[in-house]
Each structure stands twice: as C-alpha cells, then as structure tokens.
C-alpha cells in the first residue's frame, strides 16, 4: 500500500443520478412513491451533494464532533449540499443509511467516518453504485483489492499526540502520566508510544500508565479509570476513546492536567487543559468538494500529518509554561518540514526487548508501523489480557 497522496487509481465522479428506484411495485405501495419522488439531480450540475455518517453523536466533543465540524465547514459553501446522520451503528444499518443518502438525497460522495464501516459494509455497497464515491476515514484502501469508487483518508495524528506528550512531560511534577485507551489496536498503541516517547524526551524518568477500557464509548469505565489513575499519583491525563469529555472533565474536577484528543476540549477544562491532538477534517472535505465540483479525479488515498494540514494541536492552555511552548513549537516545526522521525532505534518495548535496533529508523509512512502490537519502554501496561 503506497502512502502518498498522489497514489491513485482514480475515478472521476459523475454528478448525474445513477440509481433508479427498483421495484416500485413492491407490496402495492409503489404508487405513493411518485408523490414523494426523488429529487431531480440534473438541475445540480455543479452542485455537490455529500453524505456523512457518524458512529456516535455529533456533539461528543470527540471523534464524531471532529467530523461534524468538518462537514459544517464545507456546508457553508453555496455549491455544497451536505447531509449527515449520527449514531449509525456498524451493522447493516450503515449500509441502509448510505443507500438512503444515495437514493433519497442524491448524494454523489459518501463519507462513512467510522473505522468499522469499511469491511464489510462499504465493500458491499460500493459495487452497487459505481458512480458514487465512497471515501472512508481510516486508510485501508488497497487498489489491488478494492473497488475503484472507494477511497480512504486518514491523518498521522500521532504527530500531534507527540507534541502533546512534550507539553505533558513539561507539566508533570509527579513523573506519572495516565493514558485511558479503548482497545489495544495498532493506531491506539502508536499514539500511546508517541506520547510516552515525547514525554520521556523531556524527562527520562517519566512513566505512562495505560488503562484499556475495552470499548470506544464507555463513559463509566473512563471515569473510574481516570479517578483510579489520579489516586495513584498521575498528574496529567490523556485518552484515546471516541469522546474525551469524561476524562478531561474528571481531570479538571480532580485538579490535574489533561491533554485532549480528536477535537478541542479546552472549554471543558479551563484550568488544567494543556493542549490536544486534533483532526483538521474541514481542509480534507473542502479539498474533496473542490475536486468533485471541477470534475477532477479524486485520489483514492489521502494521508498526511501536520505538513499536509490534516492534523493540528489545540491552542495551549494558560498553565503551559513558556519553556514547554517553545519546545513543542520546535518539534512541530520539524514535523512541518517533514524531517522528524519518531521511530528511530534503539527503541525497547516495555518488557525490555529491543524492537528497533540501533541505526534503524521507520519514517512516518512506513507500513511496518501500522501493525504495531507493542508498548514502548516507560509505559506501564500490557497489550494482552
């Protein structure tokens, strides 16, 4: 799988309607269909209709809100019609919702934003609608296996998590940081490892305690874990769950620092919020919309970090020291230039095994990093059991 934005197996998107209603006669109710008929799409030559699906609520202060903000930003364009649907589970419901957007709203591009929407749901629906583009957030597109009208986009948000880790390393007095994570999958482990290595680059004595809650949205366990970590002396908390709201609010209530994730949570913790790693989907969605309205081909794979504008850091909180800001800004500038390598040997995992030998380095786009199953030295926690 090639990671470059330009890598493509491109499909121009045809704005004409392509799916007609089938079997109107069914159950004798078809006669009613005419009255509520499908919107005539030929009137909308340049207008782009985009459909977004979120797995959780639009206002979750997290993953889904980040996408909703991206959608809201492009909906302001007069030539974009953006429709969206929240709380769509990763079941057949998402297949039906995508088809409904295509059949009833005339959507030309669908953005199913949850990871679990891809296989089997997008892969099942996309071949049925060859003129609709299905762009999935997660970066799983493989030109050799997947339909041409499918694409994927994802950001190297671990770069922004690294920057958060530096700020956290400067802020911590106890040397104990806490990470509340959903499940031990590569994407999550990579964030934890980045955060840990960044904090330890400030103070090598720092440890990061990890708690896996077992699910993407588990507010009760997230609150319990936050409290128990704070009781153990942790003074900076961060998380990788769909909504960081509970963790950030609990940290604020207990008087410890917090780093956000997905979207901006600074409002939830005016005293202790340090910074956070955020997506910048509005840029991605606007780029796509522009390409489509011009009739240009859409790349099947879009990837990027700070440099490409796909991720950003939340504004620093008041408590962040000038020294921490300077350090974090410096590293961010290196990411912007594209010459900062996080996974540079020697790196040991937290059982003492050398996972990256001295002299070896894995750049940001290296595929090896996408099957990560280890935790770096300094993390207190296990990926199994």
């Amino acid at each position, binding site marked *: 799988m090639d990671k470059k934005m330009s890598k493509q197996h491109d499909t121009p998107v045809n704005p004409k309607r392509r799916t007609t*209603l*089938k*079997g*109107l*006669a*069914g*159950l004798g*109710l*078809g006669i*009613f*269909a005419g009255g*509520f008929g499908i919107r005539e799409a030929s009137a909308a030559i340049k207008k782009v209709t985009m*459909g977004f699906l979120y797995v959780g*609520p*639009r206002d979750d202060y997290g993953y889904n809100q980040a996408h909703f903000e991206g959608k809201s930003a492009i909906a302001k364009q007069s030539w974009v019609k953006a*429709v*969206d*649907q*929240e*709380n*769509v*589970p*990763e*079941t*057949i*419901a998402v297949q*039906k*919702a995508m*088809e*409904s*957007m295509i*059949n*009833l*709203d005339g959507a030309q591009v669908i953005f199913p934003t949850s*990871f*679990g929407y*891809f*296989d*089997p749901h997008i892969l099942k629906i996309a071949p049925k609608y060859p003129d609709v583009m299905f762009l999935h957030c*997660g970066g799983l597109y493989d030109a050799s296996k997947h339909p041409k009208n499918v694409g994927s986009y994802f950001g190297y948000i671990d770069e922004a998590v690294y920057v958060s880790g530096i700020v956290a390393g400067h802020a911590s007095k106890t040397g104990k940081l806490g990470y509340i994570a959903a*499940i*031990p*999958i*590569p*994407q999550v482990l990579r964030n934890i490892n980045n955060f840990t290595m960044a904090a330890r680059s400030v103070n090598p004595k720092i440890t990061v305690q990890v708690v896996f809650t*077992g*699910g993407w949205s588990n507010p009760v366990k997230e609150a319990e874990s936050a409290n128990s970590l704070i009781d153990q002396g942790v003074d900076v908390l961060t998380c990788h769950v769909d909504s960081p709201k509970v963790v950030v609010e609990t940290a604020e209530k207990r008087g410890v620092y917090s780093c956000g994730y997905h979207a901006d949570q600074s409002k939830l913790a005016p005293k202790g919020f340090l910074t956070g790693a955020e997506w910048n989907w509005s840029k991605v969605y606007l780029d796509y919309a522009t390409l489509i309205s011009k009739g240009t081909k859409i790349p099947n794979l879009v990837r990027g970090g700070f440099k490409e504008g796909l991720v950003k850091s939340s504004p620093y909180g008041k408590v962040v020291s000038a020294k921490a800001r300077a350090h974090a800004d410096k590293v961010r500038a290196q990411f912007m230039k594209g010459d900062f390598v996080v996974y540079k040997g020697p790196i040991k995992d937290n059982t003492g095994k050398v996972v990256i030998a001295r002299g070896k380095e894995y750049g940001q786009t290296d595929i090896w990093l*996408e*099957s990560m199953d280890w935790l770096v030295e300094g993390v207190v926690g296990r990926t*199994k*059991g």
Partner: protein
Amino acid sequence: MLPFAPFLIPLVAIALSLVLFGGFVGLAGADVQAVYQSIYRGAFGTWFSWQNTLTSAAPLMLTALCTALPARLGLIVIGGEGAVVVGGLAAALTGLVLVDANPWVALAGMALAAMLTGGLLIGLVGWLRHGRNVNETISSLLFNYISIAILSFLVIGPLRDPETLNKPSTHHIGDTHMLGALGDTSIHWGFGYGLIVCLLLWVLYKRTVFGFAVDMVGGNVRAALLSGLPVGRIVFLVCMMGGAAAGLAGMVEVAAVHGRANTSLNAGYGYEGILIAFAARHHPLAIIPMAILFGGIRASSGLMQRDHDLPDATSLVLQGIIFILILASEAVFARLAKRQGSAA
C-alpha cells in the same frame, strides 16, 4: 369489550402517539407536516424504504420473542442482547469449523449452534429462577454483560483474525457460506426466519397441549403443579426457545451481514426487542407488525436527521411515546370495558 379491540386499541394508540410526536417536533422547531412526510417516505414511501424497514425489523422479531415467550409464564426476561451475542459467537465459530463443508450444512450448523447457545443461556436464566429462586430479570440483565465481556475477550484475544488490525474480529466464514437475500430484494433471510419462527411459535402456543400447559403455568404455578405438570421443565424449555430465537438473530448478523463475530453483534437489538415484545403484548403474531413499525421508525430516522436537522434521539422519542401509549391504552380500555360491563 369492542369486537376488534385487540387491533383497534394499538391503532388508536399509534395515531395518538403521532399527534403527540407532532407536537414534540413542532416545539423542536421543525415543520410538522414535512416531518410526517419524511417518516412515511423513509419507512414505507418507496420499495427501497420498505426494504430498509423490513431489514431493520428482521432481528427485532427474533429478539422480541426472547422476552415474549417467557412472559407467557409470567417471567420478565431481558437477556436478548446476551443471547444474540453468544449466538453470533457460536455461529461464527461453527462457520469456521465447517468452512470446507457444503454451504447448506455449514449454515444449518451455524443456525443450530447459535440457537443452542442462546437457548442454553436463557434456559439457565429459567433454571436459576425455578430451581434457585434467582430473579430472572436481574440474572438475564447480568448475563448480557457477561456475554458481551466474553465476546470482547475472545475477539480481541484468542480468536482474533490478525488481518483485522483496527477492528478486532474472528476469521471470516467465507463468502460462499454467507446467507443470501430474499429473491431480488436487499432484505436478507433473517426476515424470513423471523416470520417463520413467529408463526411456528404462535401455532405452538395456540394449537398444542404444550401451549396450553405454558398458559396454565403462567396462570397459576400451584395449580399447574397440582395438575402434575412438569413446571421446571416447561420453564426451562420456554426460556430456551426464547433464547434460541435471539441466538438465531445473532447467527443472521454473522451469516448475512458481517461474516465474522465482532463487537458489532452488541448493537442493541436485544434491548429493542424487549420494547417490541411489550408493545405486542407478548403475542407472537403481533410481534410481526410491531417489529415492522419499529423497524420503519429506525429506517426513517436518517431522513428526519437529514431533511429536518433533528437529532437521532427524535426517533427514540417517537418509539417511547408509542410504547407508553400502547401500554397505557390497554389499561384504560380494560377499565372502560369493566365500567360498561357493570353498568349493563
């Protein structure tokens, strides 16, 4: 009572619910008439919408039975979610064992394994109730959590297909072993299963000695015992049938939709089934239209969001209003009928 009361009461209740719901969306600032149109269009307005509705209804018919069957015995079982989960898990595992078998054998094996596992889970709830006097509502609720935890443990741990990096799942059962759609539609066979199972159970309850015995145990356990009925066995069997229905819903999720077991099995079908069982007054045939109605509301939720900027919770509000009014109207009508009776 009125001659068509069993049909009339829910219809009046549903009509009234729609009026109340109109007031609600009006307060939320939406165009009420347009919202009604969207619900109709999204749920029943086109053949495409009908397929959506029937697909959504499919698992609900089966999970509703998990609550409705034991309810005939006076038991309130809410363990449908757990039965779906363990059923789906068992189906996925059986599918992997039978991966080289003939598709029919594999599908039959998966269905049997799912029904047996789901059935044993809820059967255990029944046995705990009868043999150990453990409250069935609490135990079935707790079994849901245990089942979900077992599923998460297995799919993240020992049963995980290493290819499923960021969405841990079991290995795929193979495309040739997937359950297809009904004819040319996009409705999967789960809907057919639901119809058949509801009909069979209706016949069982209405037309057999076993059904009569169930009603007797439900009416008065002591009388049933005195008549020599094997109450413990009946409780176990009925709970087992309910669990088997929900387990079958889990098999359909795996065989018709995902091809694997993963945490998407725990999507709330079991909980929505409880609602439908109560709204259908635990009648196996009434479950069919109720599941279609609730499936339709689910299917139209998207249009309510997209056309009117209403939150997803709007469809839950409509479901809630219908649920409460159906239950309440039953009581009101019963009282009216009584008063009429005493006046005459």
